[in-house]
């Protein structure tokens, strides 16, 4: 009987909660009849649950409460209205597929930045006002990183006819000229310096407003309008692809901020992630040129393979990368030697592809 006593003792709370396994009752009930100690404990615990259940006059609890599968809730519209008022869905009606990844990335960064507001339940450590000063990348803190995005989105915004949200003398580096990189470095430094004199909230508001304006342009809604190629920051691409580049950069920097804060940022939803991958492969192929040693390139989970470099020689090497790792490599977040990969064949040929990918210097 000693065994029973210990077993039943362990089960009494589950019994009081009505959470026994079928069949346990056969052990519990007879023991309670013969063990005064356990019976007293059982009564005390069950009384506690009874108080938890509430006063007997109370309105009857919904029938679903004790079922293992709660009934389908009555209706969606009313209950979710508050949520949807508080945060708009990323995919506004009319957004074209080419702009959807950018819309989502903007929404994702806003969600992360909300963790820095210092409001809320305080269940996450390390958040709050001081977190804006957390070092992120280069010599930027969180606010500077958002300011950088504000500057980086500006060339596309200006190209699409939006007004600059920022004072300053440096022209947005829109041109194809060889000086674009210098002009861009100057501009981003200028914008960051400007934003450092403001509250982080103001910087975020300026960035978010520019992003919203970008997503409200006809080019964000009409694939045909977005098919015109233009050179921004040294890259000649259709406007649709420039939107993809904006998404890429917003996500990479969101990931930077998340790492700095110790909050892991999930990768973009798969359809968006693949858009980034496809664009990056295309740009990588162009950057390698037609004379590089041919390398068969694949991304895990994707259906396609690409031959990068020359097409007429036999394949010199094969590379397989995870989509997120590939994006991080292209975003400059991995050294070519360090990125996890499957690699066979000629090491030099494979390394040439990785090194070129890492040097695309998009961001």
């Amino acid at each position: 009987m000693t065994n029973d006593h210990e077993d039943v003792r362990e089960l009494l709370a589950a019994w009081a909660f009505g959470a026994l396994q079928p069949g346990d009752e056969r052990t519990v009930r007879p023991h309670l009849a013969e063990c005064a100690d356990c019976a007293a404990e059982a009564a005390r615990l069950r009384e506690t649950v009874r108080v938890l259940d509430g006063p007997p006059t109370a309105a009857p609890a919904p029938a679903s409460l004790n079922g293992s599968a709660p009934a389908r809730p009555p209706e969606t519209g009313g209950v979710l209205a508050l949520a949807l008022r508080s945060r708009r869905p990323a995919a506004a009606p009319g957004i074209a597929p080419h702009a959807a990844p950018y819309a989502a990335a903007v929404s994702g960064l806003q969600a992360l930045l909300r963790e820095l507001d210092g409001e809320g339940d305080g269940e996450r450590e390390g958040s709050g006002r001081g977190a804006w000063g957390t070092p992120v990348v280069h010599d930027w803190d969180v606010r500077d990183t958002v300011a950088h995005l504000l500057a980086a989105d500006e060339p596309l915004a200006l190209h699409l006819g939006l007004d600059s949200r920022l004072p300053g003398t440096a022209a947005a580096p829109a041109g194809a000229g060889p000086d674009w990189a210098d002009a861009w470095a100057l501009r981003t430094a200028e914008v960051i310096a400007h934003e450092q004199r403001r509250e982080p909230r103001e910087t975020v508001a300026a960035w978010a407003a520019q992003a919203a304006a970008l997503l409200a342009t006809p080019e964000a809604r009409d694939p045909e309008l977005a098919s015109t190629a233009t050179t921004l920051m040294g890259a000649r691409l259709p406007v649709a692809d420039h939107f993809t580049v904006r998404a890429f950069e917003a996500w990479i920097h969101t990931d930077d901020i998340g790492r700095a804060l110790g909050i892991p940022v999930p990768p973009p939803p798969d359809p968006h992630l693949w858009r980034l991958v496809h664009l990056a492969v295309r740009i990588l192929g162009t950057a390698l040129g037609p004379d590089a040693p041919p390398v068969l390139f694949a991304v895990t989970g994707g259906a396609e393979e690409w031959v990068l470099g020359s097409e007429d020689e036999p394949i010199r090497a094969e590379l397989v990368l995870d989509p997120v790792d590939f994006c991080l490599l292209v975003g400059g977040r991995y050294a070519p030697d360090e990125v996890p990969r499957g690699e066979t064949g000629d090491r030099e040929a494979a390394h040439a592809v990785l090194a070129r990918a890492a040097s695309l210097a998009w961001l």
Partner: protein
Amino acid sequence: MRPPADAELRRRLVYGDESALAEAYTAYGGLVRAVAARVTHSTAAAEDVAQEVFAQLWTRPYAFDARRGTLRTWLSMLAHRRAVDWVRSEARHRKDARADDSALHAIPDAAPGPDETVVHRERFRQLHSALAELPQPQREVVHLAYFAGRTYRQAAVELGIPEGTAKTRLRTALRTLAETLADPPDPALERGA
């Protein structure tokens, strides 16, 4: 829903995918309302709590950490906490009203009754406040067993813990609550501090 599915749902919530919010509501809206209704005894209050809970999930998806628990228990615990807040603040209003000269008829009470009912209600409030303060590992098991109707074995599987651990946590939690009941009400708690 298994934890990997939770992580995927959170990923979509993070990126502002409205359909992920609708899915979360379809899966857990019933539980959230049921928890809130059980604590507030008011359909209208349960509705408000459900609104707040899903607004919190949607506006602050990062507050839910899929590595630290399931979405089911997280939403259930959030609903409970909000519902306890509602009950405390309602109790405060009633006390304020009672302190008022013309108070006796001022508040149309959901369950007006003799002193016994008042005592019942105080104990009920006290116990749910204590439940909301339990350490998270214990609270999770209680939520699954008590609100979501899981057996201790199902709860253990859902939380990825040994069965014996689930039983022990239920026992520790319920004993703590039983002791709360034996103690006189904490005035600070009563003020909702």
